[in-house]
Protein backbone atom coordinates (compact mmCIF):
# COMPACT_ATOMS: atom_id res chain seq x y z
CA UNK A 1 0.00 0.00 0.00
CA UNK A 2 1.44 3.36 -0.99
CA UNK A 3 1.00 6.06 1.62
CA UNK A 4 0.31 9.64 0.66
CA UNK A 5 2.66 12.32 1.99
CA UNK A 6 -0.24 13.82 3.94
CA UNK A 7 -0.59 10.59 5.91
CA UNK A 8 3.06 10.82 6.91
CA UNK A 9 2.60 14.40 8.10
CA UNK A 10 -0.42 13.46 10.18
CA UNK A 11 1.35 10.37 11.49
CA UNK A 12 4.25 12.57 12.64
CA UNK A 13 1.84 14.91 14.44
CA UNK A 14 -0.23 12.21 16.14
CA UNK A 15 2.88 10.10 16.80
CA UNK A 16 4.59 13.01 18.53
CA UNK A 17 1.44 13.64 20.59
CA UNK A 18 1.33 9.96 21.62
CA UNK A 19 5.06 10.01 22.41
CA UNK A 20 4.46 13.06 24.58
CA UNK A 21 1.50 11.60 26.46
CA UNK A 22 3.27 8.27 27.03
CA UNK A 23 6.49 9.92 28.10
CA UNK A 24 4.84 12.46 30.32
CA UNK A 25 1.95 10.64 31.95
CA UNK A 26 2.32 6.89 31.48
CA UNK A 27 5.08 6.03 33.86
CA UNK A 28 5.34 2.57 35.29
CA UNK A 29 7.21 2.53 38.58
CA UNK A 30 10.26 0.28 38.23
CA UNK A 31 12.06 -1.69 40.95
CA UNK A 32 14.94 0.81 40.94
CA UNK A 33 13.89 3.84 43.01
CA UNK A 34 13.28 7.12 41.19
CA UNK A 35 13.41 5.59 37.75
CA UNK A 36 10.45 4.96 35.56
CA UNK A 37 10.07 2.65 32.64
CA UNK A 38 9.64 4.76 29.55
CA UNK A 39 7.10 3.12 27.29
CA UNK A 40 7.39 5.83 24.65
CA UNK A 41 10.34 4.16 22.92
CA UNK A 42 8.22 1.09 22.24
CA UNK A 43 5.74 3.38 20.54
CA UNK A 44 8.48 5.19 18.62
CA UNK A 45 9.94 1.94 17.27
CA UNK A 46 6.47 0.75 16.25
CA UNK A 47 5.65 4.01 14.46
CA UNK A 48 9.03 3.96 12.71
CA UNK A 49 8.33 0.46 11.37
CA UNK A 50 4.89 1.50 10.19
CA UNK A 51 5.58 4.95 8.72
CA UNK A 52 9.28 4.83 7.80
CA UNK A 53 12.53 6.49 8.83
CA UNK A 54 11.58 10.13 8.19
CA UNK A 55 8.44 9.86 10.31
CA UNK A 56 10.39 7.95 12.99
CA UNK A 57 13.08 10.60 13.20
CA UNK A 58 10.63 13.49 13.41
CA UNK A 59 8.32 11.79 15.92
CA UNK A 60 11.28 11.16 18.22
CA UNK A 61 12.66 14.65 17.78
CA UNK A 62 9.41 16.62 18.12
CA UNK A 63 7.95 14.39 20.85
CA UNK A 64 11.07 14.49 23.00
CA UNK A 65 11.53 18.24 22.53
CA UNK A 66 7.92 18.84 23.61
CA UNK A 67 8.42 16.71 26.73
CA UNK A 68 11.52 18.72 27.63
CA UNK A 69 9.73 22.00 26.98
CA UNK A 70 6.85 21.00 29.25
CA UNK A 71 9.05 19.84 32.13
CA UNK A 72 11.05 23.03 32.26
CA UNK A 73 14.41 21.41 32.96
CA UNK A 74 15.67 22.90 29.75
CA UNK A 75 15.83 21.19 26.43
CA UNK A 76 18.56 18.57 26.37
CA UNK A 77 19.29 18.80 22.68
CA UNK A 78 21.76 15.94 22.86
CA UNK A 79 19.10 13.50 24.06
CA UNK A 80 16.40 14.98 21.86
CA UNK A 81 18.59 14.40 18.81
CA UNK A 82 19.39 10.89 20.00
CA UNK A 83 15.65 10.09 20.16
CA UNK A 84 15.30 11.29 16.57
CA UNK A 85 18.26 9.18 15.47
CA UNK A 86 16.68 6.14 17.13
CA UNK A 87 13.47 6.59 15.12
CA UNK A 88 15.52 7.02 11.96
CA UNK A 89 17.62 3.90 12.53
CA UNK A 90 14.68 1.65 13.36
CA UNK A 91 12.79 2.98 10.34
CA UNK A 92 15.73 2.31 8.04
CA UNK A 93 16.45 -1.15 9.43
CA UNK A 94 12.91 -2.44 9.28
CA UNK A 95 11.87 -1.45 5.77
CA UNK A 96 11.07 -5.05 4.91
CA UNK A 97 8.59 -5.50 7.75
CA UNK A 98 5.08 -5.01 6.41
CA UNK A 99 2.76 -4.68 9.37
CA UNK A 100 0.04 -3.02 7.28
CA UNK A 101 -0.29 -6.28 5.33
CA UNK A 102 -0.99 -8.11 8.57
CA UNK A 103 2.34 -9.91 8.58
CA UNK A 104 3.99 -10.26 11.98
CA UNK A 105 5.49 -13.71 12.43
CA UNK A 106 8.68 -14.88 14.16
CA UNK A 107 10.87 -13.45 11.41
CA UNK A 108 9.36 -9.97 11.70
CA UNK A 109 9.53 -9.95 15.50
CA UNK A 110 13.18 -11.02 15.42
CA UNK A 111 14.03 -8.39 12.81
CA UNK A 112 12.20 -5.69 14.77
CA UNK A 113 14.01 -6.50 18.00
CA UNK A 114 17.46 -6.70 16.44
CA UNK A 115 16.82 -3.30 14.84
CA UNK A 116 15.62 -1.69 18.06
CA UNK A 117 18.40 -3.08 20.26
CA UNK A 118 21.11 -1.98 17.81
CA UNK A 119 19.34 1.40 17.52
CA UNK A 120 19.25 1.89 21.30
CA UNK A 121 22.91 0.96 21.70
CA UNK A 122 23.99 3.38 18.97
CA UNK A 123 21.81 6.21 20.29
CA UNK A 124 22.35 6.08 24.03
CA UNK A 125 25.79 4.50 23.97
CA UNK A 126 27.23 6.70 21.25
CA UNK A 127 25.14 9.60 19.90
CA UNK A 128 23.86 11.02 23.21
CA UNK A 129 27.15 10.84 25.16
CA UNK A 130 29.21 12.27 22.29
CA UNK A 131 26.80 15.19 21.88
CA UNK A 132 26.83 15.72 25.66
CA UNK A 133 30.60 15.97 25.59
CA UNK A 134 30.49 18.47 22.74
CA UNK A 135 27.79 20.61 24.38
CA UNK A 136 28.27 20.28 28.13
CA UNK A 137 31.81 18.85 28.46
CA UNK A 138 30.67 16.43 31.15
CA UNK A 139 33.00 13.59 32.14
CA UNK A 140 33.14 10.63 29.80
CA UNK A 141 32.62 7.90 32.38
CA UNK A 142 29.45 9.45 33.81
CA UNK A 143 27.89 9.86 30.40
CA UNK A 144 28.65 6.36 29.24
CA UNK A 145 27.33 4.92 32.51
CA UNK A 146 24.09 6.90 32.04
CA UNK A 147 23.94 5.96 28.37
CA UNK A 148 24.45 2.28 29.02
CA UNK A 149 21.72 2.23 31.65
CA UNK A 150 19.28 3.94 29.28
CA UNK A 151 20.23 1.64 26.40
CA UNK A 152 19.55 -1.48 28.46
CA UNK A 153 16.32 -0.32 30.11
CA UNK A 154 14.94 1.17 26.88
CA UNK A 155 15.75 -1.98 24.88
CA UNK A 156 13.92 -4.15 27.40
CA UNK A 157 10.77 -2.01 27.41
CA UNK A 158 10.84 -1.62 23.64
CA UNK A 159 11.19 -5.38 23.30
CA UNK A 160 8.07 -5.93 25.41
CA UNK A 161 5.85 -2.95 24.58
CA UNK A 162 6.93 -2.44 20.95
CA UNK A 163 6.59 -6.10 20.06
CA UNK A 164 3.11 -6.20 21.60
CA UNK A 165 2.10 -3.15 19.55
CA UNK A 166 3.33 -4.78 16.36
CA UNK A 167 1.49 -8.04 17.03
CA UNK A 168 -1.73 -6.27 18.04
CA UNK A 169 -1.65 -3.98 15.03
CA UNK A 170 -0.88 -6.76 12.55
CA UNK A 171 -3.65 -8.91 14.04
CA UNK A 172 -6.15 -6.09 13.49
CA UNK A 173 -5.23 -5.82 9.79
CA UNK A 174 -6.56 -8.23 7.16
CA UNK A 175 -3.74 -10.42 5.84
CA UNK A 176 -2.54 -9.91 2.30
CA UNK A 177 -4.04 -12.61 0.15
CA UNK A 178 -6.44 -13.73 2.84
CA UNK A 179 -9.32 -13.41 0.39
CA UNK A 180 -9.50 -15.97 -2.38
CA UNK A 181 -11.55 -15.92 -5.52
CA UNK A 182 -14.17 -18.63 -5.48
CA UNK A 183 -13.35 -21.48 -7.77
Amino acid sequence: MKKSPVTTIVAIGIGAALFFVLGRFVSIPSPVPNTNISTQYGLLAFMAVLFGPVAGALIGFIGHALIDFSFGWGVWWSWVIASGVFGLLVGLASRKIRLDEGKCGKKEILGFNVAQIVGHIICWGLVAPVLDIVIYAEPLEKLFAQGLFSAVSNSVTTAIVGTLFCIAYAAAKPKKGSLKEEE
Partner: protein
Amino acid sequence: MRNIFNFVDRPSPIHELTGATKLICLVLWSLAAMTSYDTRFLIVLPLLSFALFRLSKIRISDVSFMLGFTAVFMVLNNVLVFAISPDHGAGIYGSEHILLGRGRYALTAEQLFYHANLILKYLSTIPIVLLFVCTTNPSEFAASLNRIGVKYTIAYSVALALRYIPDIQREYHEISQAQQARGIEMSRKESLVKRLKAASAILIPLILSSMDRIETISNAMELRGFGENKKRTWYMGRKFTKADIGAIIFCAVLAAAAFVLNYINGGRFYNPFV
Protein backbone atom coordinates in the same frame (compact mmCIF):
# COMPACT_ATOMS: atom_id res chain seq x y z
CA MET B 1 -4.64 19.60 32.51
CA ARG B 2 -5.33 22.13 29.81
CA ASN B 3 -2.23 24.17 30.39
CA ILE B 4 0.57 21.61 30.25
CA PHE B 5 2.93 24.02 28.54
CA ASN B 6 2.56 26.64 31.25
CA PHE B 7 1.84 29.50 28.90
CA VAL B 8 1.10 32.54 31.08
CA ASP B 9 -1.05 35.08 29.29
CA ARG B 10 -0.05 38.37 30.89
CA PRO B 11 0.78 41.36 28.69
CA SER B 12 4.43 42.38 28.81
CA PRO B 13 7.12 43.54 26.37
CA ILE B 14 8.35 39.94 26.04
CA HIS B 15 4.88 38.63 25.25
CA GLU B 16 4.55 41.22 22.52
CA LEU B 17 7.52 39.88 20.56
CA THR B 18 6.47 37.50 17.81
CA GLY B 19 6.88 33.77 18.35
CA ALA B 20 9.43 33.60 15.54
CA THR B 21 11.61 36.21 17.24
CA LYS B 22 11.52 34.39 20.54
CA LEU B 23 12.39 31.12 18.83
CA ILE B 24 15.35 32.67 16.98
CA CYS B 25 16.51 34.30 20.23
CA LEU B 26 16.19 30.99 22.08
CA VAL B 27 18.29 29.20 19.47
CA LEU B 28 20.97 31.93 19.47
CA TRP B 29 21.02 32.09 23.25
CA SER B 30 21.32 28.31 23.57
CA LEU B 31 24.10 28.36 21.01
CA ALA B 32 25.95 30.97 23.06
CA ALA B 33 25.44 29.08 26.32
CA MET B 34 26.43 25.76 24.77
CA THR B 35 29.63 26.84 23.06
CA SER B 36 31.23 28.82 25.85
CA TYR B 37 32.53 27.49 29.12
CA ASP B 38 34.03 30.85 30.05
CA THR B 39 33.05 31.47 33.66
CA ARG B 40 32.79 35.25 33.27
CA PHE B 41 30.43 34.86 30.32
CA LEU B 42 28.39 32.19 32.11
CA ILE B 43 27.84 34.57 35.03
CA VAL B 44 26.49 37.26 32.72
CA LEU B 45 23.93 34.97 31.03
CA PRO B 46 21.91 33.99 34.15
CA LEU B 47 21.89 37.61 35.34
CA LEU B 48 20.55 38.68 31.96
CA SER B 49 17.89 36.00 31.99
CA PHE B 50 16.75 37.02 35.49
CA ALA B 51 16.44 40.60 34.23
CA LEU B 52 14.36 39.32 31.31
CA PHE B 53 12.15 37.43 33.77
CA ARG B 54 11.46 40.69 35.59
CA LEU B 55 10.62 42.33 32.30
CA SER B 56 8.22 39.52 31.31
CA LYS B 57 6.16 39.90 34.53
CA ILE B 58 6.34 36.13 35.13
CA ARG B 59 6.08 35.56 38.88
CA ILE B 60 8.09 33.03 40.84
CA SER B 61 4.81 31.32 41.76
CA ASP B 62 4.12 30.68 38.05
CA VAL B 63 7.25 28.62 37.63
CA SER B 64 8.00 27.40 41.16
CA PHE B 65 7.05 23.81 40.30
CA MET B 66 9.39 23.69 37.36
CA LEU B 67 12.17 25.43 39.28
CA GLY B 68 11.93 22.68 41.90
CA PHE B 69 12.35 20.08 39.17
CA THR B 70 15.37 21.88 37.83
CA ALA B 71 16.99 22.16 41.26
CA VAL B 72 16.64 18.43 41.95
CA PHE B 73 17.97 17.63 38.51
CA MET B 74 20.96 19.91 38.97
CA VAL B 75 21.89 18.44 42.34
CA LEU B 76 21.54 14.86 41.09
CA ASN B 77 23.68 15.53 38.05
CA ASN B 78 26.42 17.17 40.09
CA VAL B 79 26.49 14.33 42.61
CA LEU B 80 26.68 11.82 39.77
CA VAL B 81 29.55 13.66 38.09
CA PHE B 82 31.50 13.83 41.33
CA ALA B 83 30.82 10.20 42.21
CA ILE B 84 31.94 8.86 38.86
CA SER B 85 34.83 11.17 37.99
CA PRO B 86 36.11 13.27 40.90
CA ASP B 87 39.25 14.19 38.92
CA HIS B 88 37.49 15.65 35.89
CA GLY B 89 38.30 19.23 36.91
CA ALA B 90 41.99 18.46 37.31
CA GLY B 91 41.95 16.91 33.85
CA ILE B 92 40.40 19.99 32.27
CA TYR B 93 42.46 22.69 33.98
CA GLY B 94 45.71 20.72 33.96
CA SER B 95 46.64 21.27 37.60
CA GLU B 96 45.65 19.96 41.02
CA HIS B 97 45.21 21.89 44.29
CA ILE B 98 43.86 19.57 46.98
CA LEU B 99 41.58 21.36 49.43
CA LEU B 100 40.61 18.52 51.76
CA GLY B 101 40.58 14.77 51.97
CA ARG B 102 42.89 12.38 50.16
CA GLY B 103 42.82 9.47 47.79
CA ARG B 104 40.49 9.24 44.83
CA TYR B 105 37.76 11.42 46.32
CA ALA B 106 40.04 14.24 47.47
CA LEU B 107 38.30 17.54 46.79
CA THR B 108 40.40 19.67 44.47
CA ALA B 109 39.94 23.36 43.78
CA GLU B 110 39.73 22.53 40.07
CA GLN B 111 36.89 20.05 40.60
CA LEU B 112 35.00 22.61 42.71
CA PHE B 113 35.49 25.23 40.03
CA TYR B 114 34.30 22.80 37.37
CA HIS B 115 31.11 22.09 39.36
CA ALA B 116 30.51 25.83 39.75
CA ASN B 117 30.82 26.13 36.00
CA LEU B 118 28.46 23.24 35.43
CA ILE B 119 25.83 24.86 37.67
CA LEU B 120 26.30 28.18 35.88
CA LYS B 121 25.86 26.34 32.60
CA TYR B 122 22.50 24.99 33.73
CA LEU B 123 21.52 28.41 35.03
CA SER B 124 22.30 30.00 31.68
CA THR B 125 20.38 27.47 29.58
CA ILE B 126 17.37 26.51 31.71
CA PRO B 127 15.70 29.81 32.76
CA ILE B 128 15.64 31.06 29.18
CA VAL B 129 13.76 27.95 28.03
CA LEU B 130 11.31 28.49 30.88
CA LEU B 131 10.86 32.09 29.81
CA PHE B 132 10.23 30.99 26.23
CA VAL B 133 7.65 28.41 27.30
CA CYS B 134 5.85 30.84 29.61
CA THR B 135 5.61 33.69 27.13
CA THR B 136 4.92 31.90 23.83
CA ASN B 137 1.44 30.90 22.83
CA PRO B 138 1.66 27.23 21.66
CA SER B 139 -0.46 27.97 18.58
CA GLU B 140 1.89 30.72 17.56
CA PHE B 141 4.84 28.40 18.05
CA ALA B 142 4.00 26.30 14.98
CA ALA B 143 3.51 29.40 12.85
CA SER B 144 6.86 30.73 13.99
CA LEU B 145 8.63 27.49 13.04
CA ASN B 146 7.45 28.04 9.49
CA ARG B 147 8.59 31.65 9.70
CA ILE B 148 12.19 30.70 10.50
CA GLY B 149 12.39 28.43 7.47
CA VAL B 150 11.08 25.05 8.61
CA LYS B 151 8.97 23.49 5.86
CA TYR B 152 5.30 24.19 6.48
CA THR B 153 4.39 20.51 6.33
CA ILE B 154 6.69 19.86 9.29
CA ALA B 155 5.51 22.96 11.13
CA TYR B 156 2.01 21.59 10.60
CA SER B 157 3.04 18.28 12.19
CA VAL B 158 4.07 20.20 15.28
CA ALA B 159 0.77 22.11 15.23
CA LEU B 160 -1.10 18.79 14.96
CA ALA B 161 0.85 17.33 17.88
CA LEU B 162 0.02 20.34 20.05
CA ARG B 163 -3.63 20.18 18.98
CA TYR B 164 -4.03 16.46 19.72
CA ILE B 165 -2.09 16.12 22.97
CA PRO B 166 -5.14 17.01 25.14
CA ASP B 167 -7.39 14.68 23.10
CA ILE B 168 -5.02 11.73 23.40
CA GLN B 169 -4.54 12.45 27.07
CA ARG B 170 -8.29 12.38 27.63
CA GLU B 171 -8.63 9.16 25.68
CA TYR B 172 -5.83 7.60 27.71
CA HIS B 173 -7.64 8.43 30.95
CA GLU B 174 -10.91 7.03 29.66
CA ILE B 175 -9.36 3.73 28.58
CA SER B 176 -7.35 3.54 31.78
CA GLN B 177 -10.44 3.96 33.94
CA ALA B 178 -12.42 1.45 31.90
CA GLN B 179 -9.64 -1.12 32.28
CA GLN B 180 -9.23 -0.41 35.98
CA ALA B 181 -12.94 -1.01 36.42
CA ARG B 182 -12.28 -4.41 34.90
CA GLY B 183 -9.60 -5.06 37.50
CA ILE B 184 -6.15 -4.23 36.16
CA GLU B 185 -3.61 -2.90 38.62
CA MET B 186 -0.64 -0.67 37.81
CA SER B 187 0.69 0.35 41.21
CA ARG B 188 3.83 -0.81 42.98
CA LYS B 189 1.89 -3.64 44.64
CA GLU B 190 1.94 -5.75 41.50
CA SER B 191 4.97 -7.51 40.00
CA LEU B 192 6.81 -5.77 37.18
CA VAL B 193 5.67 -8.17 34.47
CA LYS B 194 2.04 -7.75 35.53
CA ARG B 195 2.45 -3.99 35.54
CA LEU B 196 3.81 -4.03 32.00
CA LYS B 197 0.95 -6.26 30.93
CA ALA B 198 -1.52 -3.88 32.55
CA ALA B 199 0.08 -0.96 30.72
CA SER B 200 -0.31 -2.76 27.41
CA ALA B 201 -3.97 -3.41 28.14
CA ILE B 202 -4.38 0.36 28.17
CA LEU B 203 -1.90 1.27 25.47
CA ILE B 204 -2.98 -1.16 22.75
CA PRO B 205 -6.53 0.24 22.46
CA LEU B 206 -5.03 3.73 22.56
CA ILE B 207 -2.61 2.96 19.72
CA LEU B 208 -5.20 1.24 17.55
CA SER B 209 -7.68 4.08 17.92
CA SER B 210 -4.90 6.58 17.20
CA MET B 211 -4.15 4.77 13.94
CA ASP B 212 -7.79 5.26 12.95
CA ARG B 213 -7.47 8.89 13.96
CA ILE B 214 -4.46 9.32 11.66
CA GLU B 215 -6.48 7.94 8.76
CA THR B 216 -9.48 10.19 9.44
CA ILE B 217 -7.39 13.34 9.78
CA SER B 218 -5.23 12.67 6.74
CA ASN B 219 -8.30 11.95 4.62
CA ALA B 220 -9.89 15.19 5.78
CA MET B 221 -6.72 17.17 5.05
CA GLU B 222 -6.25 15.58 1.65
CA LEU B 223 -9.83 16.35 0.69
CA ARG B 224 -9.15 20.00 1.48
CA GLY B 225 -6.09 19.96 -0.75
CA PHE B 226 -3.41 20.13 1.94
CA GLY B 227 0.10 19.94 0.53
CA GLU B 228 -0.87 21.09 -2.96
CA ASN B 229 0.76 24.52 -2.78
CA LYS B 230 4.34 25.44 -1.91
CA LYS B 231 3.34 28.02 0.69
CA ARG B 232 0.77 28.46 3.38
CA THR B 233 -0.38 31.35 5.52
CA TRP B 234 -0.92 31.13 9.27
CA TYR B 235 -3.77 32.49 11.31
CA MET B 236 -1.42 33.10 14.25
CA GLY B 237 1.43 34.59 12.17
CA ARG B 238 2.46 38.21 12.89
CA LYS B 239 4.73 40.79 11.29
CA PHE B 240 8.12 41.76 12.77
CA THR B 241 8.36 45.08 14.61
CA LYS B 242 11.39 47.15 15.65
CA ALA B 243 11.48 45.44 19.04
CA ASP B 244 11.70 42.07 17.32
CA ILE B 245 14.67 43.07 15.23
CA GLY B 246 16.35 44.60 18.28
CA ALA B 247 15.94 41.40 20.28
CA ILE B 248 17.36 39.27 17.47
CA ILE B 249 20.39 41.52 17.06
CA PHE B 250 21.00 41.46 20.82
CA CYS B 251 21.00 37.63 20.92
CA ALA B 252 23.14 37.42 17.79
CA VAL B 253 25.73 39.62 19.54
CA LEU B 254 25.64 37.24 22.54
CA ALA B 255 26.27 34.23 20.32
CA ALA B 256 29.07 36.04 18.51
CA ALA B 257 30.61 36.99 21.87
CA ALA B 258 30.68 33.31 22.87
CA PHE B 259 32.62 32.40 19.74
CA VAL B 260 35.01 35.32 20.13
CA LEU B 261 35.69 34.31 23.75
CA ASN B 262 36.45 30.75 22.64
CA TYR B 263 38.96 32.17 20.21
CA ILE B 264 40.59 34.51 22.77
CA ASN B 265 40.83 31.84 25.48
CA GLY B 266 42.24 29.36 22.99
CA GLY B 267 39.65 26.78 24.09
CA ARG B 268 36.25 26.53 25.69
CA PHE B 269 37.38 26.89 29.30
CA TYR B 270 38.47 29.95 31.21
CA ASN B 271 41.39 28.83 33.34
CA PRO B 272 42.13 30.83 36.52
CA PHE B 273 44.73 28.29 37.69
CA VAL B 274 47.55 29.38 35.37
